Structures are given as C-alpha cells and as structure tokens.
C-alpha cells in the first residue's frame, strides 16, 4: 500500500515509522524546514520538504497513485483541503484527517471529509465510557488542579513496550484511558499489548505525572 502522510509532527512521524516497519511504501511531507531536516535523518528519502497545500507538492509526492492520504498537520484548514483535493482532484480512495479544534469537525463533515480523528473527542468519549463512576460532567466540574489528563509517547526503550495492560503496575490514582496507534485510538483492554510509538492517554490525580513518566520509560516524552 502507498501511503502519503502530511505533517511530520509526533503523530505523522510515528505513523510513517510504523507503516514503514509494516512494509508499506510511505511518503511524509513536512513544510517546516527544521523539522524536515530532523525527520530526514531517520526517514531519509521517505520524507519530502514542501507545503502540501500546493498541488505540485502533492503531485511530486505521487498523490495520484496513493491508496491512502493522511493529513495530520496542526492546521485544520490545511487538513481539510489536502483531503478534499486528494479525493476530488486526484481520486484517492481513502483519506484520514486530523481535527485539531473539535469545533471545526462540522466543517470537515460539510466538505465530506471522513473519517476524522479528533484527540479531544476521543478523550471525552473515553472518559464517558471508562470513568463512569466520576461521570463526564462531574469530572469536568472538578477544579483544574484536582485531576489531569496527560499524553505520553512510548519511546523505543520504554520498559512497558511489549507488556500487557493487565500486567502494568500503574501508580494508585492513575488510569490508562486510551491508546493512539497508527492514527486511530482505542480503549485498551487488559489484554492490549503496548508498543513503542504508542501515544497513551492517562487520567490521574495531580502530582503523579512524574511518577507515571518514569514508569513509562526515559524515552517517553510528552508529545505536547
């Protein structure tokens, strides 16, 4: 499968890495020069420099033969239009777009861009499902300093990579609420095996962040 990914942030970079590991052909497009240079050291010819809003940049990356276009930049308008053009001009079968601001989700829908991935939506849905004893409203009513949600990226050297969720010894007062892998999120079951490159979301009592970070490994940096 040929996959075109736009935006080499943490999501895009990890996606590219995972898909390459799985044997797919991948081109990643990044429009920030410094970021491009960093990512290029690892991904080499699999990353291209340019603004994918411009048609020639997409064409240079071979958009017409892409089986899947994934737009995961930090800009919702860019993500919308890249997918719109990929689908309607270059006849790409499948697109996936990231929604940064959940309020923009309606515009993705209006333009017929589906499916979309919104981290905020995902978290809210997961809280509703996974933390029924608090309840969504109650949780959101809590003063900010009483509870936090953090996102952790599992680095290559993470001691929890390869382990089942059931076997984790998470600090008391913390709960794993979702795993983002290859651009999709899911609720981990006790049987879920964590992988390096996973982004995990955890809800926790204040003050536990450092403990949790240490537990997930020295290479796991917060993907802000």
């Amino acid at each position, binding site marked *: 499968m040929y996959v075109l990914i736009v935006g080499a942030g943490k999501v895009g970079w990890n996606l590219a890495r995972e898909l390459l590991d799985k044997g797919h052909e991948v081109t990643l497009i990044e429009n920030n020069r410094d970021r491009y240079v960093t990512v290029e050291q690892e991904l080499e010819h699999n990353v291209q420099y340019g603004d994918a809003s*411009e048609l020639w940049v997409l064409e240079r990356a071979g958009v017409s033969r892409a089986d899947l276009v994934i737009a995961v930049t930090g800009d919702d308008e*860019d993500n919308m*239009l890249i997918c719109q053009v990929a689908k*309607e*001009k270059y006849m790409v079968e499948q697109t996936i777009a990231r929604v940064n601001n959940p*309020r923009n989700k309606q*515009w993705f829908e*209006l333009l017929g861009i589906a499916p979309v991935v919104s981290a905020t939506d995902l978290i809210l849905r997961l809280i509703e499902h996974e933390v029924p004893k608090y309840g969504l409203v109650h949780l959101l009513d809590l003063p900010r300093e009483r509870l936090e949600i953090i996102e952790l990226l599992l680095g290559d050297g993470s001691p929890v990579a390869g382990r089942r969720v059931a076997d984790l010894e998470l600090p008391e007062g913390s709960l794993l609420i979702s795993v983002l892998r290859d651009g999709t999120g899911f609720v981990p079951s006790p049987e879920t095996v964590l992988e390096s490159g996973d982004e995990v979301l955890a809800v926790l009592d204040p003050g536990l962040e450092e403990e949790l970070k240490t537990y997930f490994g020295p290479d796991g940096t917060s993907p802000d």
Partner: protein
Amino acid sequence: MPRVGDGSARGVGGASSGLPRDSIQIVFLMIVGAGRVGSSLARAMLRDGHTVSCLDEDPEAHARLEIGLEKPWEDVGGQFTVGTGLEIEALQAAGIERADAFVAATDGDNTNIVIAQIAKMRFKVPTVIARILDPYRAEWYEQQGLHTICPTRVAIEMLETEVKEAAAKVAGG
C-alpha cells in the same frame, strides 16, 4: 450595477457612482478579512449605497476600514465584527444568514477556500467569491464551481503583456 474597485480616487461619503440611486439594487455584502483588499472593497461598496459587514479576527482591522473616512465606520453605515470565518457564532453575528454576497479576502488561501465553501454550502449565500493567490488551486476550485479571483494570475498576465510589448519594441527598433 456600478463597478466596484475603480473608485479609489472618488470622494468618500458622496454618492457619485454615476447612476441614479434608485437604479441600484441594494445588496447586503459580507466580507471576511478587512486587509487592504477587503477594506477597500468594503468602502467602495458602502459608498455605492450597499450594506456592508466585515469580519476580521484582528480588532485593529477596524482602523483600516476608516482610512479616508471622516466619520467612524459604523456612522457611515458599516458593520464590523471581530472573529474568524470558521466560527459559526461570528459568522452569524456578522449577518451571514441575510447576506446576498460573501467575499473571502483574508491573507490565507486555505482559510478563504474553506470559508467560501462554508458560505456557499452551509449558509447558501447566493454569490460567493474567494480570493486565492495560488493560480493552480484557484483554477481547480473555479472548475469545481467556486467563484475565485486570483490576483497572482492577473499580475502574471499584466506582466506578460508589458514584457512582450517591450520585447517587441526592442526587436522592432
């Protein structure tokens, strides 16, 4: 309808479009992005007696609307709302639901393309025009039925004409 955009030399405030006022159909025009282009268009349309509402994320853009005016923008009948074209509340506050025409003239191509489609598809504004600097995308979206204005294309054509004329003179002389 009088042409707009050719009135920069005319006095402000005076109805001097050259046509009797009652022959003009008054429209409600909404402009997103009150930069050089948006604000000049806004003043020209207001001068011709139309109703004009501007939306800009920068509150300071209001000052640009008043360039050359003797009275505040609101006193000459203009409206100004602070917000972006992606915020539904801002669009509604600026009156998109009763707009006859919508112009997307922010400094971002992507923003203009998205909000023009919102105006057209979601709010069914009868006339929607998007300013797109990128000629290739302007051309493609035009083919998709979006009315686009591409200043870059205009500049290329003008330069081409001038340069060819100059070249012909050199060759002929």
